[in-house]
């Protein structure tokens, strides 16, 4: 029974991680920007939702929309006004990463100052766990999480394969010169990538707010998962990152059957190290040579 419980928890966590990782992997794979502020986007989305829903008592669709708006605005503006400037004159991996990181620090601390250092949760009618069968506690929201993740991934798949924008986006990662053929510019496309990547975190943020709660430093954990999943799944593979996110979420929960909770985060990194050691290309990625 413990195993089943952990399995279901793992599915829920994994679904959230898959969404987060997909957003990061999309951005990194297509623009080669190590968007260390991805965690910040997540935190912003979560807290805006919390503010609108739990504090201002707006309806949840409105709150969700506000969160989406805030997250996408953050991602897009960051790309337009910070990354673009850096890339114009120098744009080395290091410089962009540091700027991104700096942004993440600013956001984390601003939120800590505005809201509170401690954790907050959004309670919804769906959050309460029900004893489905003796010993097995599941909250209806778990089903919402998994359903949401599936819907978003299907939508993403459709976007990337069936629309002109999606195809152009995939071209951006492979060969930036082809983009002009579609009447777009790499810069504009980059904005779209950040838009989509940032939107992908919003459902994950909202659902995390409703399940385990929010705290200002959660962006760090989000980044760890994003990076680990992107590498384990294979750089450049969206499917890989999502799959890896799922695996990491499952592993993090299932391992609780054998080890203490403090070590669960370490499990993620042990998996990461093993991949770097033996299969740096990840599950789906291209072969990686220095």
């Amino acid at each position, binding site marked *: 029974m413990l195993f089943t419980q952990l399995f279901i928890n793992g599915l829920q966590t994994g679904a959230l991680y898959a969404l987060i990782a997909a957003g990061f992997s999309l951005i990194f794979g297509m623009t080669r920007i*190590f968007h260390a502020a991805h965690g910040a986007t997540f935190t912003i989305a979560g807290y805006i939702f919390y503010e609108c829903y739990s504090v201002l008592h707006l309806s949840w669709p409105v709150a969700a929309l506000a969160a989406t708006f805030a997250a996408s605005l953050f991602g897009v503006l960051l790309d337009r006004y*910070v990354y673009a*400037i*850096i890339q114009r*004159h*120098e*744009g*080395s*991996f*290091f*410089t*962009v*990463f*540091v*700027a991104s*990181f*700096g*942004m*993440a*620090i*600013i956001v*984390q*601390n*601003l939120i*800590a*100052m505005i809201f509170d250092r401690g954790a907050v949760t959004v309670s919804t009618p769906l959050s309460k766990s029900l004893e489905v069968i003796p010993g097995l506690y599941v909250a209806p929201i778990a089903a919402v999480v998994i359903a949401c993740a599936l819907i978003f991934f299907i939508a993403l798949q459709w976007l990337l394969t069936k629309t002109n924008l999606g195809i152009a986006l995939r071209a951006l990662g492979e060969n930036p010169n082809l983009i002009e053929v579609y009447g777009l510019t790499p810069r504009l496309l980059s904005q779209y990538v950040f838009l989509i990547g940032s939107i992908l975190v919003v459902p994950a943020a909202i659902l995390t707010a409703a399940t385990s709660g929010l705290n200002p430093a959660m962006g*760090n954990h989000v*980044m*760890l998962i994003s*990076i*680990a999943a992107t*590498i384990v799944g294979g*750089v450049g593979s969206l499917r890989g990152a999502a799959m890896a996110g799922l695996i990491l979420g499952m592993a993090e929960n299932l391992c609780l059957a054998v080890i*203490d909770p*403090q*070590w669960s*985060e*370490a499990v*993620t*990194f*042990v998996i*990461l*190290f093993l991949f*770097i*050691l033996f299969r*740096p290309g990840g599950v789906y990625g291209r072969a*990686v040579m*220095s």
Partner: protein
Amino acid sequence: MIAYLQNIAVLFCINAILALTLNFIMGYAGIFSLAHAIFFGVGAYATAYIAMHASDSLLLCMAASAAISAILSMALALPALRVRGEYFVAASLGLQVIGVTIFSEWKSITGGLGGMIGIPRPKLWGYTFNDDTAFLMLALVVLGIVVGITALLVRGSFGRSLMAIRDSESAAQTYGKHVNAVKTLSVAVAAGLAGVAGSLYAFYISFINVESFVLETSILLMAMVIIGGTGTLFGPIVGAALLMSLPAALTYLPFLPPTELGSIQQIIYGLAMVLLMMFRPGGLVGGRSKEKSA
């Protein structure tokens, strides 16, 4: 007042050593590490353990701290350097996270969350550094030695190898540089010297626990290096001085709520990082914007 200043001075020396060593790999080799606080911690715990259970000899403890940190770093470097730079960032982040968990859980060696108390002052050739002023002298000497070693390495053939690898790894390979060996060695040197800083820290504060070696610390060190200026010898020292004086400077601004000072500090260096990367990637000392390669 004197005691207060002496205290800051010792901590400055320790932070400067950490910043210098981090710059060695970040600014000169182009290797981005988020795990520097862990090597600092390993050095501190090693010295604490040896000093409390075996010997309080300065040289022995420092040597042990340096060696253990250096060897540990190679465990990180060897696999992670085989692949691209982004992977090393991830791996170092992983090491930082796992390291903190180990520091917190390995009670028999690190004292767990409670840490280690009662670390004695070190002894060198019969003299014990109980006096704070004497310890400050010691710290300055160690800092001087680290600056000297760094300068020698950076201005010599090894430094050129590092910079060649940083500027064009493929060309460096083509002209005979064994890239992995050079990178691994540079990480080992940086980690070893960070371990020495840890040793100093443990001896000075006499009480250490995991809180000093968390991700925030690695981030602070990174900020010092970046703001001061990567790839310059004195940049990290300037960065260390600046970022250490920030908390004190902030207390002089009456309109800032004291409970939020920590966050405000972090916001300031976050902002500094963003603005510097946009307009002056070489940092305050480095200045000149780095241009795209030749």
